[in-house]
C-alpha cells in the first residue's frame, strides 16, 4: 500500500548502506542466552573475514557470559533470517553472501544459559 498523503510522498531511506561510511550493518543474535537482552548491531566492512567476528569481536561482546568460553565454534549452528545457514569462517562477510542489514544468529549446542533458563 502507498502512504495516504496530501501530495507526492517519496523520501530517501535513512539507513541506506551509503550512509555507513564503507561499512554495512550486520545483526547477530545468540540463541538461548537472553542475559544479552537483544541481538547486537554492528557496522562491519564487507571485506572483513568472518572468523574475525568470532575471534576479535564477539569475545568482547559476549565474554561476560560463563557459557561463552565453552562454545565450540565448529559445532555451532547458524541461521540467516531464521533459516539454517552455513558460513565459511575463512571467507569474508560479503563472500559469505551477507548483505547490508542481514540478521544472523547462532546456537551453541549443549549451552542453555544461566541455570538452563536460556538466560
Amino acid at each position, binding site marked *: 500500500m502507498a502512504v495516504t498523503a496530501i501530495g507526492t510522498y517519496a523520501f530517501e531511506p535513512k539507513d541506506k548502506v551509503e550512509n555507513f561510511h564503507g561499512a554495512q550493518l550486520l545483526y547477530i543474535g545468540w540463541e538461548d542466552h537472553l542475559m544479552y*537482552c537483544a541481538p547486537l548491531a554492528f557496522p562491519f566492512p564487507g571485506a572483513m573475514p568472518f572468523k574475525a567476528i568470532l575471534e576479535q569481536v564477539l569475545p568482547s561482546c559476549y565474554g561476560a557470559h560463563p557459557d561463552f568460553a565453552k562454545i565450540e565454534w565448529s559445532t555451532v549452528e547458524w541461521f540467516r533470517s531464521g533459516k539454517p545457514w552455513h558460513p565459511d569462517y575463512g571467507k569474508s562477510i560479503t563472500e559469505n553472501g551477507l548483505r547490508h542489514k542481514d540478521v544472523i544468529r547462532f546456537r551453541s549446542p549443549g549451552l542453555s544459559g544461566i541455570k538452563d533458563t536460556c*538466560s
Partner: protein
Amino acid sequence: MDMEASKKKLGLKERYNHLTRGLDWETTYQPKEKVFPYTRYEGIKIHDWDKWEDPFRLTMDAYWKYQGEKEKKLYAIIDAFAQNNGHLGVSDARYINALKLFIQGVSPLEYMAHRGFAHVGRQFDGVSARIACQMQSVDELRHAQTQMHTVSNYNKYYNGMHSWRHWHDRVWYLSVPKSFFDDAMSGGPFEFVVAISFAFEYVLTNLLFVPFMSGAAYNGDMGTVTFGFSAQSDESRHMTLGLEIIKFILEQDPANVPIVQRWMDKWFWRGYKVLTLVSMMMDYMLPKKVMSWKEAWEIYGEQNGGALFNDLARYGIRKPKGWEQASIEKEHLSHQAWAVFYNYGAAALFHTWTPTEEDKDWLSAKYPDTFDRMYRPRFEYWEQQAKEGKRFYNGTLPMLCTTCQIPMFFTEPTDPTKICYRESDYQGDKYHFCSDHCKDIFDYEPEKYVQSWLPVHQIYQGNCFNPGVDPTAPGFDPLRAVLDFYHLNFGRDNLDFEGSEDQKNFAQWNGHGAVGA
C-alpha cells in the same frame, strides 16, 4: 449608565451554542475544502458536522475559571512541598527514578499533544470539534508545564532530570515515545485523533496515569499526586472526547469503518509498545508497589477495554489485532524490559538495580508462572556478579525494531525463550521488526517508516557526536562520545543505583549517614 438586562441569563447550552455554532460562518469567496484542506484525503467521509455533539459543553469563561482554581491549589501544594523538603519524604531514592522516566518520556509527549491538538483544532471543518480540540490543546500545554514545575523541585537535588528536552530528540530509549507521537502528528487529522484521543487517551490512558499517580501516592510523593489530580478532570474530558470522535466518525459513513479499524489496530499496538516503559516502572522501579503490570493489564486492558470493544461491535469494530498478544505478554513484559535497561544502564539517564529480596518475593507471588522459572535466575546471577565487583553492562548496541524503535527483546508469543524476529524486504533493503504487528504497520506504509531515525543506526552513521569531535583521533571512544552528545553526566546520571550520588545524598539528607555505615 447601567444597562438593564433585558433577558434572563443564557443557559449553559445556549452559551455553548453561541461559542460554537454562533461564531462559525459559511465561507463565501473560498470553497470549504480549500479552507479545511486536510479533512478529505484520508478517505474519511463526513456528511454532517452538526451531528457532532461535544459531551462537555464547556464555555471559555467556565474553562478559564475551573482551570484557574485548579492551578491555584496545585501551586500552593507544590510550594509547600518545596518549602518542607517534601522530596525527603518519599519511600526511597529509587522511587525518584520513576519520576525521571516520567519527565523524560511522558512530559514531552504532553507538549507534543498540545501541538497536535492545536493543529487539528484548526483543521476540522466542524466548529464544535475544533473548539473541543483547542481546549484539549490548552490542557496539554498546562499538563506539560505543571509537570515541569513539579519535577523541577526534584531536579534541584537529584540527577537525571536536567536536560530532558534535549534528551527527547536524541537518547535511544526516548526515541520510542518520540517516534510514537511523531508518527501520529504526521498522519492526517482523523488518524491523529483516533491515535491520540481514542487509542491512547481512551483505551490506554489508565495504564499510564494510574500507575504513575498511584505509584506517587504509595511512595509519598505528594507533589506528583497533586499534578495527577489537577490533570484528572481534564483527562476525563479527553477520554469522553476520544469516545465521541470514534462514534461520530463511525456513524457518519459505513466506509469509515475499515479505515478506523486499521488505525485502531495500528495505534493500539503503537501505544501498547510505549507502555512497555510503564510495565517495568510498576514492577521494578517503585519501592512500594501499587499492583503488578499483569494485574493492571487485566483490569484496565482485558476487563475495561474488553467491555469497550463489545460496545463498539455494533459499528462493526472488533478488538485491535495484537490484543491477545498483549495478554500473553503480560507475564513477561516488565521482566524483559527491566533487563534491557539493566543491560544498557551505562547509557540510561536513570539508575537501574537488581530487585531486592522483598521485591523478588513480590514478583514471585505476582508472577507465579514465570518469575522464578525464567527471570529470577537472571537477576540473581547479575546480583552475584555485582557483589563480586563485576556489575554486568552490555557494551554493544542492540538491534532495534524499525517501527516501535525498541531493542528487539520481545520473545515469541509461543516461546518466551526465543527472540521474536520478523523482517520485510522493501526496495532492496531489509527492515526488521519485533512483532507481527510492528511488521504489519511497516508493510502498510513502508514509505513512512524507511525514514525511522533509529538511534543505533544514527550512532553508526556518525550523526550522534558533538560538533568538532574527531572520530579518527587516536583513542577515540565512540560510545563515550555519544553520551557526551546526549549531555549525560557520566557517573551521576547513569549506572547502578548502588553507589550512586542520589542514593548517598538521600541517605545523608535523611540523617542516615553514609550508605553502608
